[in-house]
């Protein structure tokens, strides 16, 4: 668990939560998030990038919609 002394949460008005509750929510969120991050990069994605590079010259993949 990470210590949480970081920045104060903005606003401060309109019924914002006390520090302790905010901390708890933050810790739970990050724990959930980090749990996925720790799974690393699934093979399908490194393989996808390899395939894309091998496609060199074909110039496109199955993605033709608008720009990001």
């Amino acid at each position, binding site marked *: 668990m990470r210590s949480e002394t970081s920045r104060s*949460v*903005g*606003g401060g008005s*309109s*019924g*914002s*939560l*006390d*520090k*302790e*509750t*905010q901390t*708890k*929510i*933050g810790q*739970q*969120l*990050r*724990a*959930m*998030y*980090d*749990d*996925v*991050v*720790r*799974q*690393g*990069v*699934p093979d*399908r*994605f*490194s393989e*996808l*990038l390899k395939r*894309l*590079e091998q*496609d*060199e010259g*074909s*110039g*496109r*993949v*199955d*993605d033709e*919609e608008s*720009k*990001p």
Partner: protein
Amino acid sequence: MKIDDALRDSVLAAVPKLRAFAISLSGNVDRADDLVQETLLRALTHIDSFQPGTNLQAWLFTILRNLFRSEYRKRKREVEDADGHYADSLITHPEQDSQMEFKELRVALSKLPQDQREALILVGASGFSYEEAAKICECAVGTIKSRVNRARTRLANELSIEGPSDLAPDASVRAVVADKPR
């Protein structure tokens, strides 16, 4: 397609966080992975529009968010389910027991309006600043702040973690909440 090695490595390095973001948004691992794949394809085929020196991760998150939103519009009914029936469909990785641990939180997240959910995740979990999150969500910093605040309040209610200043539970209750196993 020629991709600069360093750039490719950076893109790949962003995948774990992109997945975490996508899973938090969609509540569904399979859909999230499809979303990440689409994001990578989109990013690499449009790599020219990335400005070197700017935040690559924020750029990728922006793409993913936009893809999610356009998909979301298509299957609105399926994704947002205010009654939380959708919670039953939350997929857990078979080998990933720990996903169960966060089920309650995921259910609560799924009940948030999308704007609030993404703001809270970006700031509260992904570690983006309010400014970066505002850029990713294409809105004002103040808007992000208020979305994050509202999201936290709602989440606290859903998860019944009330602060002592609101309900003033006695010390023993507070201790139990604080010691809640995770």
